[in-house]
């Protein structure tokens, strides 16, 4: 048998007699001293030729749950090598404490056998797919119910709670004007600069008006506006309704016999449907002005020349196709925001999760539907 190089450290002293190792634990056994005991246990596990280990706890005055972990460590290390273990010097309270922790540990092991926490990657993929399927089905259901109820209420619009409408319209529409105008102007400016460089090469400066006018009114104006509204109002609806759900306000409304669709969803959806086209027109004007500024600054365009060309290039169908799309975008943004809000369950974390989902899926829907519009408009030659 090999003799240990050192006979003690700050935390334990030990002596070897024949094949028996006697340990005396000297310091508090707590989560704060765990590292030192771990190291000591590690070095002792290297010792060979032992048949019995006697651990003396009589000098230990302070201990906590780590005691159970340490005993477990010693048991495991010795058990593996067939070494018998004997614990001595434990006070009655220490023994009682250890017994209660060991009972808990046993309960843990039993439960671990019953409830497997391990989940394979395949399970995760499966779960994700199922969740996506359920999510889509729920949204289609929600969407269908909303459209159905809107159609039902067309002849009796007084049944919708219009009290919220001006407030939501102001928040989603009027309050968003400055940011929509600013973003629209900057987009016009950027597109103008990018286009001007190319057009100048062909001496086609004047066609900047065509490029700006058509791209802004047909695509960029409605799209950028919708993305901004999704970030502002879609998120706001999800957070607002989600918080109402968490604080049981939705349950209270339901228990009072209110129809959530009529009371909460419709005023928001209708207000945003009305606000987004107006915002889109603001964005269109700002974008064109941004493009005009580029034309005036980088190309030899005149104000009159630009507007004359714009008048020829822009048709009503360009503007109205954009406005029509923006109505649909508004509907989708508000519907998704409300839908996500009503999906919230639990607490604050869930509100955050579904608010993010409202924005992400709202933007996805906008772009997806925009692609469908592009295809349909092309087929219909609009």
């Amino acid at each position, binding site marked *: 048998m090999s003799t240990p190089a050192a006979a003690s450290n700050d935390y334990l002293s030990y002596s070897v007699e024949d094949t028996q190792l006697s340990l005396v634990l000297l310091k508090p056994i707590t989560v704060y001293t*765990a590292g030192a005991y771990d190291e000591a246990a590690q070095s002792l596990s290297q010792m060979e030729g032992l048949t019995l280990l006697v651990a003396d706890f009589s000098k230990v005055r302070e201990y906590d749950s780590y005691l159970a972990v340490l005993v477990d460590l010693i048991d495991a290390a010795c058990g593996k090598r067939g070494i018998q273990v004997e614990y001595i010097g434990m006070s009655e309270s220490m023994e009682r404490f250890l017994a209660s922790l060991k009972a*808990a540990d046993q309960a843990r092991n039993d*439960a671990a056998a019953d409830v497997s926490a391990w989940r394979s990657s395949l399970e995760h993929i499966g779960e994700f797919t199922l969740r996506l399927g359920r999510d889509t089905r729920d949204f289609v259901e929600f969407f269908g119910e909303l459209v159905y109820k809107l159609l039902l209420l067309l002849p009796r619009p007084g049944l919708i709670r219009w009290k919220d409408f001006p407030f939501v319209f102001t928040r989603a529409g009027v309050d968003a004007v400055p940011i929509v105008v600013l973003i629209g102007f900057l987009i016009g400016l950027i597109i103008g600069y990018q286009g001007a460089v190319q057009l100048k090469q062909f001496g086609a400066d004047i066609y900047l008006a065509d490029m700006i006018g058509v791209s802004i009114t047909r695509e960029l104006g409605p799209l950028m506006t919708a993305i901004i509204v999704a970030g502002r109002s879609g998120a706001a609806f999800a957070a607002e309704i989600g918080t109402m759900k968490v604080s049981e306000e939705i349950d209270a409304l339901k228990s009072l016999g209110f129809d959530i669709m009529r009371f909460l969803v419709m005023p928001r959806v209708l207000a945003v449907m009305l606000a987004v086209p107006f915002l889109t027109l603001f964005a269109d004007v700002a974008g064109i002005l941004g493009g005009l500024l580029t034309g005036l600054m980088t190309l030899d365009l005149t104000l009159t020349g630009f507007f004359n060309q714009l008048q020829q290039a822009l048709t009503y169908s360009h503007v109205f196709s954009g406005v029509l799309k923006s109505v649909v975008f508004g509907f989708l943004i508000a519907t998704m925001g409300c839908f996500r809000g009503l999906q919230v369950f639990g607490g604050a974390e869930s509100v955050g999760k579904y608010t993010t989902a409202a924005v992400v899926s709202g933007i996805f829907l906008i772009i997806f539907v925009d692609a469908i519009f592009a295809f349909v408009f092309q087929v219909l030659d609009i």
Partner: protein
Amino acid sequence: MPDSPIIQVRNLTIQYGSLVVLRDVSFDVYKGEIFVILGGSGCGKSTLMKAIIGLVKPSAGSIIIDGADFTSVRGSERQAVLRKFGVLFQSGGLFASMTLAENVALPLETYTSLNNDRIMQLVDIKLASVGLSGYQNFLPSEISGGMRKRAGLARAMALDPHILGFDEPSAGLDPITSAALDQLIIRLNETLQTTMLVVTHELDSIFAIAHRIIMLDREVKGIIAEGDPRELKEHSTDRRVLNFFNRVVETSEEA
């Protein structure tokens, strides 16, 4: 008395602005006892608990925890005193974005140098000791209110504090779950020898768990009774104490 005082509250006054909530309150809590602070609504019992655990700064007086004056210590000394406490808040106070295991592991990861395996072993022991084996990977939103409280208790016990505080542990629980939580408090007190400081006005809980109580009164802004609740119920000469323990409502004419 079970042992020497672990908490000594001396001449404590707490006020919010000009509103005095507690005035000149003094009492001791002894090591290993279950000490209940009780009283009617608005008497300042939760405020007193918050002052003891350092969440409310008293206007005057001192709170001595294990020999250190908590009202004057700063920096690392204050941290050391704070680590002697574990608190179970009314709603459990679990972090909603973390699983139960992550919630319980958080103090261990923050304050100890244990490796992940050891931490998870301790987390499992803590969750098992409150009867939540197998719920490691559940989020707080996926379990019941009673389970959330038990998980909150497991987190409060993560660092094996010397003192465990409970703010209205029975609030929002059905009588069976509430009684089970009382049994858990008693069992943990007996096995771990932890001092328990409980704020409640649930009489069933008080008689089930309390070794000693203090009763606060809103009018007096202080203590009107101290001692064994069973003895106080039978022998107190204070009408307010007897009314409280016997659930007597005095009409204004009687008063």
